C-alpha cells in the first residue's frame, strides 16, 4: 500500500519522494452532480482513491464516494480555513511574545478536526492532547475564547488558567498535556455515554508518538472488554516531536495496533475522506464498540513553537506536502472543478475567516489579564473550600 510506503519512508529517511507519491486529492476524478437530497438540495458526488482508506478486520468499508451539498462543502472549507487562520494568528502572537510557554500548532492537519466535527453530533465528545486549538474551535469554543486563552486573558476558555494545552469546550474534554493520558480519559467519557444509555460516542485522539504509551493499550483492552462507544484516533503526522514514527513504533500501522479491535486508516489530508471515515466510525462505535482509526497527516510547522521542524526532515519534504497534499487547496480544487462554487465565493470565506480571527485577536488583546483575586479560585468546587485560606507565596506572619 502506498500509505505503508509513506510511513516507512519517513521511518528510514530514505526515498523521501515516496512520501508525496500517494494520490493527490487534486487528481481525484471531478465530481458530478448526482441529484438532490431529502431536503431538496443539489448534491455532488466525490470519488475517493483506493489508497485513501485501508482497514484492519473491518468489513463495513467507507464508501468509494461521498455525496455532499454545496452548503456542506463550503462549511468544511470555512472550518479548515478558520483553523488555519487561527493557527496563523497564534504563530504571530507567539512571535510577538503575547503567547508564552508551549504552543503546538496544527497547521496542515486541519482536515481532521473539520472532517470529524462534520460527521458527529454535539452530543458526541472529543478529547485530545495538546495540539487542540482546532478541535476546540470546531466544538464551538469561540475564536476569542481560544486566542484569549493562549494569551492568558480573562476572555479565554479557561479564564486564562489553562493556556494552549488546556482548552475546553462543549463536549470537548481538552486539551491535555501529558502524552497519552487523555486516551483512557476518552474511554471513560465513552463509558459515561453508555452508562446513561444515550446514543453518543467519544473520539479519543492521540498522536503517533503517544501511540506507544502503555496506557493506550490498557484503554484498548477495557474498551473492547466493555464495548465502549469510543473511537481511538491516531493523528499520525509522521513525527513524534523530532522522532520519525518508525524509530519509535515497532509497527507504524497504527490502525492495526488495536489487534482485536477493528481499524480504519484514512488519508487525513482529504477532508471528505476524513468525514466519511468518521461517519462510519461513529456509527460503528455506537452500535458495536471501539474502533481504532489512523489519520495520516502532516504538520507544516515544528512540533511546538520552539522547534523549527527542519532538523529531522527536509525543507523539500515540507514544501512538497504543502504544494501537493494541502487539505484546503485539495477541497478548493474539488469545489472549483465540480463547479460547486466560484473562486469569489471561496475568497469571501477566506476573508470571513481572516476577519473573524483579526477581530478575535483584537478582542483578546483588549481582554484583561486575570484579576489577582482569581488565583485561588477553581481549585475546588465553589462552597467546598475557602479561597481566602489558600496559602500563597507570601507566608502568613504572626
Amino acid at each position, binding site marked *: 500500500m502506498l500509505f505503508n510506503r509513506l510511513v516507512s519512508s519517513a521511518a528510514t529517511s530514505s526515498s523521501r519522494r515516496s512520501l508525496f507519491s500517494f494520490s493527490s486529492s487534486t487528481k481525484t476524478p471531478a465530481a458530478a452532480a448526482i441529484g438532490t437530497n431529502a431536503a431538496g438540495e443539489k448534491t455532488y458526488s466525490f470519488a475517493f482513491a483506493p489508497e485513501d482508506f485501508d482497514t484492519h478486520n473491518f468489513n463495513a468499508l467507507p464508501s468509494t464516494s461521498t455525496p455532499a451539498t454545496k452548503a456542506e462543502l463550503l462549511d468544511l472549507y470555512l472550518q479548515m480555513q478558520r483553523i488555519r487562520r487561527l493557527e496563523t494568528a497564534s504563530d504571530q502572537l507567539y512571535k510577538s511574545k503575547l503567547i508564552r510557554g508551549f504552543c503546538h500548532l496544527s497547521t496542515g492537519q486541519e482536515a481532521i478536526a473539520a472532517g470529524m466535527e462534520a460527521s458527529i453530533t454535539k452530543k458526541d*465528545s472529543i*478529547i485530545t492532547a495538546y495540539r487542540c486549538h482546532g478541535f476546540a474551535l470546531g466544538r464551538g469554543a469561540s475564536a476569542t475564547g481560544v486566542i484569549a486563552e493562549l494569551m492568558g486573558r480573562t476572555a*479565554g*476558555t*479557561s*479564564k*486564562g*488558567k*489553562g493556556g494552549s494545552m*488546556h482548552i*475546553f469546550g462543549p463536549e470537548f*474534554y*481538552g*486539551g*491535555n*498535556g*501529558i502524552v497519552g*493520558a487523555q*486516551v*483512557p*480519559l*476518552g*474511554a*471513560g*467519557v*465513552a*463509558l*459515561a*455515554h453508555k*452508562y446513561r444509555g444515550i446514543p453518543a460516542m467519544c473520539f479519543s485522539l492521540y498522536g503517533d508518538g503517544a501511540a506507544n504509551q*502503555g*496506557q493506550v493499550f*490498557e*484503554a484498548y*483492552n*477495557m474498551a473492547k*472488554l*466493555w464495548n465502549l462507544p469510543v473511537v481511538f484516533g491516531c493523528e499520525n503526522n509522521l513525527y513524534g516531536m523530532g522522532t520519525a514514527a518508525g524509530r519509535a513504533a515497532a509497527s507504524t500501522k497504527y490502525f492495526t495496533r488495536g489487534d482485536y479491535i477493528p481499524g480504519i486508516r484514512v488519508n487525513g489530508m482529504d477532508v471528505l475522506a476524513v468525514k466519511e471515515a468518521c461517519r462510519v466510525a461513529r456509527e460503528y462505535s455506537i452500535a458495536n464498540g471501539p474502533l481504532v482509526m489512523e489519520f495520516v497527516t502532516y504538520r507544516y510547522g515544528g512540533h511546538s513553537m520552539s522547534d523549527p521542524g527542519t532538523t529531522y526532515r527536509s525543507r523539500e519534504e515540507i514544501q512538497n506536502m504543502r504544494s501537493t497534499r494541502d487539505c484546503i487547496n485539495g477541497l478548493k480544487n474539488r469545489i472549483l472543478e465540480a463547479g460547486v462554487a466560484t473562486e469569489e465565493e471561496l475568497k469571501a470565506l477566506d476573508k470571513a475567516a481572516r476577519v473573524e480571527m483579526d477581530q478575535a485577536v483584537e478582542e483578546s488583546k483588549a481582554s484583561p489579564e486575570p484579576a489577582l483575586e482569581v488565583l485561588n*479560585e*477553581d*481549585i*475546588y*468546587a*465553589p462552597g*467546598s*473550600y475557602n479561597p481566602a485560606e*489558600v496559602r500563597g507565596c507570601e*507566608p*502568613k506572619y*504572626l
Partner: protein
Amino acid sequence: MDEEMARDETVFLLGEEVAQYNGAYKVSKGLLEKYGDKRVIDTPITEMGFAGIAVGAALAGLKPICEFMTFNFSMQAIDQVVNSAAKTRYMSGGTIECPIVFRGPNGAAAGVAAQHSQCFAAWYGSVPGLKVVSPYSAEDAKGLMKAAIRDPNPVVVLENELMYGISFEVSDEVLSKDFVVEIGKAKIELEGSDVTIVAHSRPVGFALEAAAELAKEGIKAEVINLRSIRPLDVATIIESIKKTNHLVTVEGGWPQFGVGSEIAAQIMESEAFDHLDSPVIRVTGADIPMPYAKNLEELSLPSVNNIVNAVKKSLNK
C-alpha cells in the same frame, strides 16, 4: 457505598476484583448482586488505564468510586490522580468538574514487605485540587466515605487493611443513612490538658492506648484524630495546644516530608508556637523500606511505647 449507590444512580464502583470476587478484602460484598455489572465493574490489572477511565467518566458527569486493591498500586496510576483528576477543574477555569473517589487500603499491612507497605498520605496530601481523608474508626469510615462520594471534588480515601477486621461501637446516629462526617474537620477522641497527640488512621488507636498508659501516671493527653489530611484542620490542633502547650504527632508513614512534618511547620508558623513549652515531636514510621521479618517490621512502625516516650520527652518527665 451501598447507601450512596442507592441514593444516586450516577455512583458506580470499579476496580480489581470488586464485583464477582466481592472485593479482595470483601469490602464490596453483595454490591454486584444488588446493583448489577453496570454499576459494579471488575477491571483488569491495569491501574493507569482504569483510573484514567474512571476520571474520564467523572469529567463526563458520573460519580465513580475507583478502588485500588491497595494504594501501593495507585503509584501506577498517580498521573491520572494528580494530573487528570486534581488539576482539570483549575485548568478549565472551573468549567469541568471531576467528582471521583479513589479508595483502598493504604499504609503498612502485616508481613507484606516493602512494596506493599507504604503510606500515601503525604503524597496525595501535597496536591492542590485533591481532598484526602484517612479514617480510623467505623464512624470515620462510614461518614467520610459518604462525604467523599457526595463531594464535588476528587477525594482520596486512605483506608487501612488492618482496621477492616476491627469492630467499633457506634451510635444510632452513625447507623443512619444521613450520617456524614465533614471533610476537613478533625475529631477530638479524648480530651486532656497536659499534651496534644495528633494522629491519623490506625495510629489513632495507638495514641489512645498511649493516653491510657500515661493516665496511669497522671498525665492527661488530648488525642486528636485528624480524619482529613487535606484540608488539614490545623485550627483544632492550635486550640488544643493553647490548652496543653505540648504537641506530639503520630503517623505510620515515612518521616521526611510527612504529615507530622507539615503539622510541625504549620504550628511553628501559627500563634500556637507561642503556646508551646517544648518543641513538637514527631513519631513516625522508620525511614527505611519495610522489612519482611516480623521483629524488624515491628521496629519500623510506631508503637504505643514510642508515643509514651515522646510524650514524656515533651513534658520533660
